[in-house]
């Protein structure tokens, strides 16, 4: 059984070998390439009536020096070329035989060891150390002086007369805050003290000022206050309610102390 199979395999292999062994090998020699050219028609000049006929004349290039020989170009020859390689493209196969690989030679490369020590180059020589000398002469000790930075003691002076010479503002009390009975009594005392009719009086304010020692008194209606100048006797004098009023008919100012509550 196995013998028959082996024989069949050997026959098939022999058949294939014979089939592909008889192919012809054709060597294609490339033909040299010759460029072809065609000659074109010469330029012609057609004369036009009324004008002088143009004549084409050949002129040499005078850009160069005289005597420069002009190169004579060989005439171009046209030649038909055929590519024979295409003819054998589909008919025959070209067998390329490859060169089998061969074992190459190997060489062992040894890496040289790194140096264990390196030399230092360009090392500068240490500068010369200067010698020290000691100056034994001591500085003269300065003398100390004491200057007391404390500020001198000051004394306080009494200046009540200075401050009394300035106008002192005294604000009017709010009459609305007074008890009604007390205000009625003040009004009665105002009428008695000034001798005026109560309807002819306009009360400007009720102030508490010293009973004596008022040297000057001015009314400041804008701020409803009076400015007074006092004498020294006013400091100890008792403060009494003082009503300042204006007479309606002539605008004169009237005033009187009223009995305190």
């Amino acid at each position, binding site marked *: 059984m196995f013998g028959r199979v082996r024989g069949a395999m050997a026959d098939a292999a022999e058949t294939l070998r014979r089939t592909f062994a008889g192919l012809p090998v054709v060597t294609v020699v490339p033909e040299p390439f010759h460029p072809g050219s065609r000659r074109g028609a010469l330029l012609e000049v057609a004369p036009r009536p009324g004008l002088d006929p143009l004549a084409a004349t050949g002129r040499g290039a005078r850009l160069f020096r005289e005597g420069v020989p002009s190169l004579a170009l060989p005439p171009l020859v046209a030649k038909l070329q055929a590519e024979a390689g295409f003819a054998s493209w589909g008919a025959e196969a070209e067998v390329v035989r490859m060169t089998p690989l061969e074992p190459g030679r190997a060489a062992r490369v040894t890496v040289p060891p790194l140096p264990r020590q390196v030399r230092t180059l360009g090392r500068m020589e240490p500068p010369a150390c200067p010698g020290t000398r000691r100056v034994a002469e001591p500085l003269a000790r300065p003398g100390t002086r004491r200057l007391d930075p404390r500020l001198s003691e000051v004394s*306080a002076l009494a200046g009540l007369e200075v401050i009394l010479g300035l106008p002192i503002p005294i604000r009017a009390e709010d009459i609305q805050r007074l008890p009604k009975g007390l205000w009625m009594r003040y009004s009665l005392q105002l009428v008695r003290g000034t001798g005026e009719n109560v309807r002819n009086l306009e009360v400007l304010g009720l102030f508490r000022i010293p009973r004596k020692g008022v040297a000057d008194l001015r009314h400041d209606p804008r701020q409803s206050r009076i400015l007074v100048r006092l004498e020294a006797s006013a400091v100890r004098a008792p403060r009494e309610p003082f009503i300042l009023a204006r007479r309606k008919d002539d605008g004169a100012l009237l005033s009187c102390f009223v009995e305190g509550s």
Partner: protein
Amino acid sequence: MAESIKLAYFMAVKEGASYLGGLLVTDTSGIPLDFRYTEPITPTHLQSILYGKSLEPHLKEEVIQKTLLKELKTPPDLFILSATELAGGWSGDAKCPVLAVQKSQEAPLVKVGTTFRAGPRDILLQLAEGAAPLRVMFAASVDAAAQEQAMAKLLEAGYHMDLTEPLERVTVALQSLVVKGS
């Protein structure tokens, strides 16, 4: 009673190279009860250099103010100084509450006598109907209880007088003394 309250107004000014201060004690009507002032103190050039920036506070607090307070026979109820002096870190040792009063631009409070605490040491006090409230600033040494007592005294005094005006009077008096002395 209103007459028992004494307000001390302290002001120290610099005129040229000299410093002088004044202390005005008034009643609740603003009428002077006492006025003391110091002689002008002119520190030397060396003292100015040695004291530096501490010269002016030292002169005002340690020299002028202590000298004037020593002259008072009875201590005042309130010690009032300018807002600038207080803001500069006043560190005197007055025996009474130290404060500054200043007219404010705030809207009026509800009614007269109302207070509004704007800060731990800053209180607004309504003294007059419809007017801007008065700003009262206390020194750091015045505690809350002392502040309340001081506000009651200010309210009572403010009913009769302009609480900020006496400081201007002291300044004018000191300037007139300098002119008179020169």
